[in-house]
């Protein structure tokens, strides 16, 4: 029995540290993930889902528009790649079949231009090269902004919570023909903890 105690303690200590992989299909495991003051997986996923549903339900996509993804201004104090949010929205929109996304117009894809540069190149079968006038121009533009505001809280002596960080993720869908906004949404994410994320 005495021998078992140190072993049990060692096992318990080992279990405390180390790396673990979260199963994203297990909602209980995702919910149990430790919370942080920075934006993290759950924030991106939830926000993207709410934004996409809001866009679809608004009726702005009824004619299956071709959307050009524009600038998402990062007005936070953290270096965040906006693709974390946008990729999720794009894939959901494409899967839903309610919109199309242009990658040539925004310069994300350079191969469609390269493929056109092959015209007249005898090494390639001319029938397999894209003809002139086949690229589709966008008729809508999606732009946005990520904002962060850090607020100091009046906390008590024994409270470890002294900071509130408010994030606002804003998106706007503009009709390129009229220049009018056809859909807009803002999703706030509010977090409270000990230190505002600055880096």
């Amino acid at each position, binding site marked *: 029995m005495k021998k078992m105690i140190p072993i049990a303690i060692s096992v318990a200590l080992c279990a405390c540290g180390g790396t673990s992989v979260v199963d994203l299909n297990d909602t209980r495991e995702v919910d149990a993930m430790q919370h942080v003051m920075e934006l993290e997986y759950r924030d991106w996923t939830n926000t993207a889902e709410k934004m996409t549903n809001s866009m679809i339900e608004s009726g702005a996509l009824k004619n299956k528009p071709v959307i050009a993804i524009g600038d998402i201004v*990062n*007005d936070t104090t953290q270096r965040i790649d906006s693709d974390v949010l946008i990729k999720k929205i794009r894939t959901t929109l494409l899967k839903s079949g309610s919109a199309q996304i242009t990658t040539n117009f925004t310069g994300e894809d350079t191969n469609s231009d390269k493929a056109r540069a092959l015209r007249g190149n005898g090494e390639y079968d001319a029938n397999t090269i894209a003809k002139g006038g086949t690229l589709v121009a966008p008729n809508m533009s999606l732009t946005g902004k990520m904002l962060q505001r850090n607020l100091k809280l009046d906390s008590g002596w024994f409270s470890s919570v002294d900071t509130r960080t408010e994030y606002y993720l804003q998106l706007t869908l503009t009709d390129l023909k009229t220049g009018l906004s056809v859909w807009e949404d803002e999703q706030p994410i509010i977090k409270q903890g000990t*230190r505002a994320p*600055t*880096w």
Partner: protein
Amino acid sequence: MRKIILICLLFLYGCASTVQSKLDSVQNNFANSNFEPTTTSDALDQDNLDLLINGTALFHADKFKESDSLFEEFNKRNINETSSSISREAGSLLLGGNVNSYKPYMMDSLFVSYYQIWDLLALHDFSNARVVINQSYERQRKMSQEYQEMIEKNQERISENSQIKEILDKNTGDWLAFSDIMNPALMYLSGIYFLDRGDFSNAITYLKRANGMMPENTFIKQDLENAQRKIRPTKTTWQFIETGFAPRLKEDSASLLLFNVGLVYFSFTTPYFNNNFTPIPNSELLANVDAMFMTEYKEYRINETLRSFASAASKTALQTTMYNSGSDKSLLMGLLSSVYAVSSSNSDVRTWATLPKYIYVIRTENLNKLNIDDNIKNDIDKNSNNLIYTRIINDKTTDIKIINLR
């Protein structure tokens, strides 16, 4: 035995001057356009001061990504410039000021943001430049608050130590300082960033602050007016010119007679200024780094000197006890305690020695007014807005970076 102790004393005295010679060598390397980092070790293993010096060196060597990543490592350390840990205080008290890792001045942290913005603009990474501007705003706001708290505390503490105050107040007549932590160059650069992008609301915020810090500067005023009238400048070039080196610190000492203890010798630091100065035609002063440094240094100096005095007093008491112990070994113990007292009483003379003394600015639509050679002017796109970073270290060394804002 006495000889050994004397050799130890000389050796330890030599160690105290190592920091000075290291900083001299860093400045000499800069003056000779040698922008190689002082260490090749991983950023995680570098001391705070190495990160700062090497970050600037890499920036001057046009290695902007590497420079930015060293500054990011510095940022991630989340150093609180005004507070101190118990272990840090104990280290300083027992072993002297240079034993701990370098504790940056608030000014250093603001210069980190300043150079990071230049790094990112040079990389045309405008998105992350904006993030760094946001960080610097937050940083400056927090520092300003902490600085005011520090002044209040210091006034209280120094009023209880009038003799030390008298020593510290000697020869400080020519020290120029501000009433708050600030970096007008950082504010102006941030203002230009937003003005160029047509973000007038943010431009006004930063330009107003820069204007408040440097009310004489007409270029800032002109840009603030533009922002208020929602006019985006075109074909305009802003040239930031850094000259000279920021103040350095040297060790000084004084003595005070303490009742029951005896004469207490204690060390403190005194700044010395680099006075090589060449006027820059067509420019206006944007930042007086000497004054920025003095603004906070004069406050830290009070803290450091009081700590040094307390430490010296306790060590003197130890020496007196050892010499008067009455044992056979009292002389030896007394000498050993003297070695300890001398070796552990040094003040921290470390500073970010490669920072400039002054920052000037030229704002013009006429390229002939810029402070650069004609052959370099050809690299400037005359049809768009440009930022030019210039570092004049001496007659031989000038570093110029032209950044097109298109």
